[in-house]
C-alpha cells in the first residue's frame, strides 16, 4: 500500500487532496469562481476577450420564457440546451434535428415540446445546479465536429481538455464519447480519455474508468497516433483563458468545429485528475517545472512555446513532493 503510494509519488501523480490544497485553494481565488461556474458569464467574457465560443441563440431565464424556445431555434434545426450552472454534463440536451414537431437528441431519442419544457423548467428550478439554486438555460449552437475523431467517437462531440497552470498549458487529453457515455464527453459517464503530446498534438493511449486502453471500445480503432488539427491555436486559446478567468489552475474544454475552428466549451475550476492516467504521466512534475522555470508574466505566445518545449512527451525529471 505504502509502496504503491511511494511509486505514484515518484511518478509525480497529483492526488485530490494535494490538488485541492496546493493548487485550487492557492491559485483559484473564490471571487473568480462565479465566472466559470456560470457558463453564461464565461461565455460573455470569452466573447469580450475575442475567444471563440459556440454562438449563443438565446437564454431562457424564467418558466415563462420557455415558450420562446421554438422562436429562438426556428432557423437552427440543431441546438444545445445547457443549464448555466450545470456540471459534469448534467442537464445538457443536444438536439441534432427534428422529426415532425418533435426534437431528436443526438442519441436518437425523440422528445416532444412538452418533455423539453419539463426538462427546462427542472433546470431553471435548479435541479442540475449546485445547491439547487435557481438557474438559467443557455440555448446555443450545436458544434459540428471535425471528422478527425470520427474513427474514435461514438456519436457526440469529442472535446480537448487542457490543464492550464497560471497561463501555461501543462497537460492535455481528448475526450472521446462512447456508447456508454451517451455521446457525452465526460469521463465518469464512460467516455474515453486519450492523452495528447503537448509538443505535437498527437494522441497517446486512452483511459476508460481506471483502465488504460489502446483501442476505442465501440469503434475498435487504435487511439494513439491521431494528429489534433490546429494544435497551436488550441494551445493559445487555452493559455489565454488564464487572463480571461484569473484562475491559476483550470481545465479548458475546447471543441473543433467544422465552421468556426476551435471553440471554448467551458472552463473548469476543479478539473479532474484522470487526465494523468490518459497521459500515463503525473501532473505534479509538470507543475513543478512551471513553478521553477516559468515566467508567469510572459505573453501567451511565449507561454505556449515554453509548454511545447518543456512538456514534450514523455516528460522526465524527478519530483519532490
Amino acid at each position, binding site marked *: *500500500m505504502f509502496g*504503491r*503510494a511511494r*511509486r*505514484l*509519488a515518484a*511518478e509525480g*501523480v497529483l*492526488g*485530490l*487532496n*494535494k490538488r485541492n*490544497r*496546493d493548487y485550487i485553494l492557492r491559485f483559484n481565488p473564490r471571487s473568480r469562481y462565479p465566472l466559470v461556474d456560470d457558463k453564461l458569464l464565461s461565455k460573455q467574457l470569452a466573447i469580450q476577450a475575442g475567444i471563440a465560443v459556440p454562438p449563443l441563440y438565446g437564454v431562457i431565464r424564467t418558466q415563462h420564457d420557455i415558450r420562446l424556445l421554438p422562436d429562438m431555434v426556428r432557423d437552427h434545426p440543431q441546438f444545445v440546451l445547457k443549464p448555466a450552472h450545470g456540471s*459534469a*454534463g*448534467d*442537464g445538457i440536451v443536444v438536439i441534432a434535428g427534428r422529426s415532425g414537431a418533435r426534437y431528436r437528441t443526438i442519441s436518437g431519442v425523440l422528445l416532444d415540446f*412538452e*418533455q423539453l419544457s*419539463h426538462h427546462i*423548467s*427542472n433546470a431553471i*428550478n*435548479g*435541479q*442540475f445546479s449546485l445547491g*439547487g439554486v435557481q438557474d438559467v438555460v443557455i440555448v446555443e449552437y450545436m458544434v459540428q465536429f471535425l471528422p478527425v475523431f470520427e474513427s474514435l467517437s461514438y456519436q457526440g462531440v469529442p472535446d480537448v481538455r487542457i490543464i492550464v497552470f497560471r497561463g501555461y498549458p501543462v497537460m492535455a487529453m481528448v475526450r472521446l464519447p462512447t456508447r456508454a457515455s451517451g455521446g457525452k464527453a465526460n469521463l*465518469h*459517464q*464512460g467516455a474515453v480519455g486519450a492523452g495528447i503530446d503537448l509538443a505535437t498534438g498527437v494522441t497517446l*493511449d486512452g*483511459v476508460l474508468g*481506471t*483502465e*488504460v*486502453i*489502446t483501442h476505442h471500445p465501440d469503434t475498435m480503432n487504435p487511439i494513439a497516433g491521431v494528429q489534433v488539427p490546429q494544435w497551436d491555436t488550441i494551445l493559445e486559446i487555452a493559455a489565454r483563458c488564464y487572463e480571461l478567468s484569473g484562475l491559476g489552475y483550470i481545465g479548458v474544454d475546447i471543441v473543433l468545429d467544422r465552421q468556426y475552428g476551435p471553440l471554448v466549451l467551458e472552463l473548469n475550476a476543479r478539473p479532474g*485528475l*484522470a487526465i*494523468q*492516467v490518459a497521459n*500515463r*504521466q*503525473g501532473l505534479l512534475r509538470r507543475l513543478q517545472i512551471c513553478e521553477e522555470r516559468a515566467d508567469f508574466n510572459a505573453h501567451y505566445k511565449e507561454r505556449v512555446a515554453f509548454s511545447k518545449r518543456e512538456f514534450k512527451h514523455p516528460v522526465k525529471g524527478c519530483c519532490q513532493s
Partner: protein
Amino acid sequence: MNNKHIYILAALLTAFSIGLFVYKAKVLGFPVRPQQQTTIWNIEAALRFHPGPAAVKATLRIPSLTPGYSIFDENFISRGFGVTTSSAPAGREAQWSVRQASGPQTMYYRAIVYRDDTRLAQDTTPPFPSPPELDEASQVALEALIAEVRRQSADVASFTVQLLRRINQGDQDPYVRVFLRRSDMPTDSAQLATLFLAGAQIPARVAHGIFLRSAPGPVQPESILEVHDGVQWLYFNPRTLQQGLPPNFLIWWRGDEPIAEVEGGFDLEVTLGVQESLLPAMAVAERRAEASGSHAVDFSLFALPIATQAVYRVLLMVPIGALMIVLLRNFVGVKTFGTFMPVLIALAFRETRLVWGIVLFAVIVSLGLLIRFYLEKLRLLLVPRLTCVLTVVVLLMVAISILSEKLGLQPGLSIALFPMVILAMTIERMSIVWEERGASEAIQEGVGSVLVAAIAYVVMGIAWLEHLVFVFPELLLLVVVATLLAGRYTGYRLLELRRFKGVLPEYTPQ
C-alpha cells in the same frame, strides 16, 4: 497561513484540551470511565436520653474541619424538636430543643462523607496558648518536666513524642505523677499533653474521631492529639505515639468536652455508626468541585436540565461521526450522497440498531426511488416534486411502523426517528445520479453512504467515547485539532492508489 501556524494552533488546542481534561480527571475526580463509582461512608450519631419535666436542650458536636474528607450531605432527624446548627470554638454544634417532651427520646445526625485529599486543615495558625494556672508545686514539676523533655528533643514533633512517652509511663515518671495524683487534672493522656504543651507555649488540642471501616456497625470514638508546629498541624496518636493522621480516620469534634450534652434530660447515651457504600463518581466530583470553588461544574453539562443533557449526549457525538466522514472521504476516498448525510443516518441507527437500520433505510430509499421514477413521468416542477417525495417518505414511514406493529416487529417502529428530509433529498439526488450517470454509479454512492453511516454509527456507539465527550466536552477540541491536521493532508487517498495505477510505468494496457 503556513504549516507552522497550524501546528502551533494544534499544539495549543491539544495542550488546553488535555490540560483541562487532566485537571478535571485528576484533581476534581471527574470519572474517566462510565459508571465509575466512588466509595463513601454514611456516618451516624444517635442520641438517646430521657427528658426531664421542663424544656430540653441537647447539643451534639458535628464534623466541620475534617482533613482528608469532605461532607457530601448531612441531615438531622428528630421528633418534635427544633434544630439549629452553630459554629462553636471547637467546631460545629447541632442543638435540638423542645419545651416539653415525654418518654425516651432518640435523635439522629446522619452524614455522607467521601475521601477528598485536597481538603487539609484549613484553619489559621492558632495563637500561643496561655500558660495553665497551677499551684506552686505543680508549676515547679511542669517547668522541670518541660526543661527535661526539651533537652531530649529537637523540634515540636520530637518534643511531643517525648512528652507523650512520659505521660504514658504514668506513675513511674516523677513529674507526671504529681499531676496524676491531683483530682482536678484530666486523666486522659491527650488532654494532659495539651496542658503540658500549653506550659511550653506550643498550641495543641485534642481531636476526637472515628475510624471509617468497611464493615458496618457501631464504632467507638478515639482521640488524637493535634499539635501546631508554627507551620501546620501535626497529629499524634497519644497511646501508640505514632505520628500522622491515619488515612481512614475522620475527625468528628475537637476539645475537651464530650461529643454530646443534654440539659433538662438524663441518661444520655450516644452511639456512633459507620457504613461504607458506593455513589456515582460524577455526583461526588460535582460536590468536590463545588467545595473547592472551581467553576468546572457550573460550566459543565451537568448544570443543564436532565432533558437537555440527554440531547447533548447525542449532539456531542456528532462531531465524532463527522470526523469519521473526514477520514473516510479524505483519506480513503469513499463517495457519499451529501457531505454529512451519513452522520444523520447514523444517528437514526442509534435507535433502530444497525441491521434493522440498514434494512429500513434500504426499504425506504428503494420504495422512494420507485415512486420518484414514477413522478418523473408526471413532469412536476422541482420544489413541488421534492415536497411530494418528502410526503411519500413520511407516509412510507407511517406504513412501515403500522405494518411492523401488526407483525410484532418492534424495531420497525423506530423508523419514525429517521431524518425524513434527509431521506427525501437522498432519494432525489440518487434518482438524478441514476438517470444522469447510470444505476451503477447511483448504487455505488448509495452503498458508500450506508457504509460510512454504519462505520460512523459503530464509532458513535462506543459508550466510553460518549461518556468521555459528555463529561469532558473539551476533548472535542481534539476533533478540531484532527480536522486542522486532516485539512492539511495532501497525500493520496486510499482509493486513488487504484485509480491512478495506470500511470505507473510497469502497468501494461489491456
